[in-house]
């Protein structure tokens, strides 16, 4: 039986971790994810879990601990943000290429510099090509639900990839909301026990992990990884289906909000979806055909499905909460516009970079974006394809 509780996003993740009771946690503090290892350390101190908590001296080491533990045959977890994730980058690639089903909770935060502790997606976006599955949450309920589904996805035999469960730092990591928690036994039954085929501590068969992979073999191993990421699509949907059967809460690659007849749409990720939905509701009340797509799964990117969801729109604004410095838009825009390319008739598409370093975005800002999309639809002129909002310009 599920029950309601008031939890911050970080605590919701920590509760899911406790319910899963993994074998090893590599822990290092960094704002705003620090609470996660704090809560978890208390569970360890109180004997509520069997987990070995390894309080390392850097995030590079926390991911290294996770890799050692995963290869040894256990479930391994960690949590981080911002510079901590950046310090892990090297090991993120190793974990994915060694096919280790580690789960990492990321409370997303701006990358330095200058140093800033508030939310945007520049940390997680920098890790988007590391070979990790990336799942983003709008609110505390979603981050909890995503976390519960993470291990079964990661451990799927034809996937074996690590999973990053992302939520917006402070905005959801520290905001307290009412959420519905599963009972411990329900979570344990949902994630099951981990029985890896090959592991270092197998007494019957040694395992060698992490070879020097020369030119004759490296590309074949990358091709295997690419296949695993494709296989992750089915695994994500299969676990979402199991989860819906358990909770009634439905998940997919993304949430299409009032998109059925929408002519103007936003594509975005994370907590801003809540603000944007409020704007959509207001505009819908005024009779305007607007909607939004909130991306849940950024890796693997749901290219065909997203194109299908947007194909009847006239204009689309893709909102990136990170700067790509590519001079032609952010990463979500690049992927979305690429997805639209195969459509017979394509909506006009613009990119909006917003919310960097915790810069707030309000309902009126979103409304203004829909107005801009309405202009584009009416005139056929997109204007600047890539622009920033919420930034002070000279009057």
């Amino acid at each position, binding site marked *: 039986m599920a029950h309601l509780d008031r939890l911050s996003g970080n605590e919701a993740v920590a509760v899911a971790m406790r319910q899963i009771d993994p*074998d*090893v946690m*590599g822990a290092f503090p960094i704002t705003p994810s620090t609470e996660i290892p704090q809560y978890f350390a208390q569970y360890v101190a109180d004997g509520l879990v*069997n*987990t*070995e908590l*390894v*309080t*390392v*001296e*850097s995030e*590079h*080491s*926390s991911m*290294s*601990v*996770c*890799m*050692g*533990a*995963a*290869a*040894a*045959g*256990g479930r*391994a977890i960690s949590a981080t943000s911002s510079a901590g994730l950046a310090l892990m980058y*090297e*090991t993120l690639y*190793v974990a994915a290429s*060694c096919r280790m089903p580690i789960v990492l909770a990321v409370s997303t935060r701006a990358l330095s510099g200058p140093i800033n502790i508030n939310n945007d997606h520049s940390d997680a976006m920098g890790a988007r090509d590391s070979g990790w599955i990336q799942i983003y949450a709008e609110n505390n309920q979603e981050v909890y639900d995503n976390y519960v589904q993470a291990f079964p996805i990661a451990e799927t035999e034809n996937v074996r990839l690590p999973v990053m469960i992302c939520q917006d730092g402070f905005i959801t990591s520290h905001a307290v909301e009412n959420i519905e928690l599963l009972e411990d036994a329900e979570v344990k039954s949902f994630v099951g026990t981990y029985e890896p085929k090959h592991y*270092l*501590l*197998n*007494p019957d068969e*040694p*395992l*060698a*992990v*992490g*070879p*020097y*992979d*020369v030119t004759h*073999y490296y590309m074949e191993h990358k091709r295997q990884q690419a296949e695993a990421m494709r296989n992750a699509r089915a695994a994500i949907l299969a676990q979402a289906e199991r989860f819906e059967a358990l909770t009634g809460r439905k998940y997919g690659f993304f949430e299409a909000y009032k998109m059925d007849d929408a002519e103007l749409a936003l594509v975005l990720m994370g907590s801003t979806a809540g603000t944007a939905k409020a704007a959509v509701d207001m505009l819908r009340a005024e009779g305007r055909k607007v909607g939004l797509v909130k991306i849940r799964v950024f890796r693997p990117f749901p290219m065909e499905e997203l194109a299908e969801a947007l194909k009847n729109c006239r204009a689309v604004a893709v909102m990136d909460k990170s700067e790509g410095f590519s001079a032609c838009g952010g990463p979500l825009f690049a992927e979305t516009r690429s997805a639209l390319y195969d459509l017979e008739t394509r909506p006009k598409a613009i990119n909006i970079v917003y919310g960097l370093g915790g810069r707030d975005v309000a309902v009126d800002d979103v409304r203004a974006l829909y107005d801009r999309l309405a202009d584009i639809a009416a005139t056929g002129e997109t204007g600047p394809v890539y622009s920033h909002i919420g930034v002070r310009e000279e009057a």
Partner: protein
Amino acid sequence: MAYNFKKELEKPERFVGGHRLCAGCGAGITLRAVMRALEPGDKAVVTNATGCVEVSTFMYPYTSWTDSYIHTAFENAAATCSGVTACYEALKRRGKVTDNYKFITFGGDGGTYDIGFQSLSGAMERGHDMVYVCYDNEAYMNTGIQRSSSTPRFANATTAPVGREKQGKQQDKKDLTAIMVAHGIPYAAQTTFLGNFRDLHEKAKKAIYTEGPCFLNVLSPCPRGWQYDTALLPKITQLAVDTCLWPMYEVEDGVWHLTYEPKKKVPIEEYMRLQGRFKHCFQKGNEWMLEAAQQYVDEKWEALLAKCR
């Protein structure tokens, strides 16, 4: 139990041939000797930092290890091993693993003195039941003999070359074993290859079978980097200890103990003369280098003797 040399050599090899280490590589000798110190009934997991040993002993699909082996990156071998040992504890507690395992990490001096120093320090401080073995060949040999903090003063290295203004490395070698001792770990020692390998064997055995984090530093000559004829290795290691440049000692629970004292202390230049990396020290006008090298050895040796008394 007394050291039975012949019996030890009859044990099945846990580190086998077919690896791609250079002919005459000292690291290969270290790996064999340390692995031999394991009791045959005990299982082990080997962790390895990126370096010569990694690229040579697990070049896909060829592993030279009979035990489980993991390499992830250069600077994190001790942290990776921490994860393996932590998982062992967790799985034992859950009854999923019942066999007795030992955990041994190998890193070169680059991966140990330098880039892996932080993760090594962290692992030692946390107290995992593991042994970290440094095969110290005194430079970044895998990338082509760049200087490390373990490279001795005056040695020629590709990033501390001999030139008109500067000749070889300018700084003294970092005393890593002493730094490891300062972590308060139960066992730390340094050794190299000598005679019937009793010293190395007994230290490896203590390091493996002492509970808690242990550190073993093994001087492992590199014929390419040190520039000597491969066959000379036994002479080089003998001179390293007889000159007192590389003293053989161990520190058990804070108590320093010298395990080998040369009958007659040999001048350092005899050690240096065999190696091309010190060639410039023997040129006219560079006599001061030999004097400075001797003075450094003497001071360090006296300081060590004081600790061991």
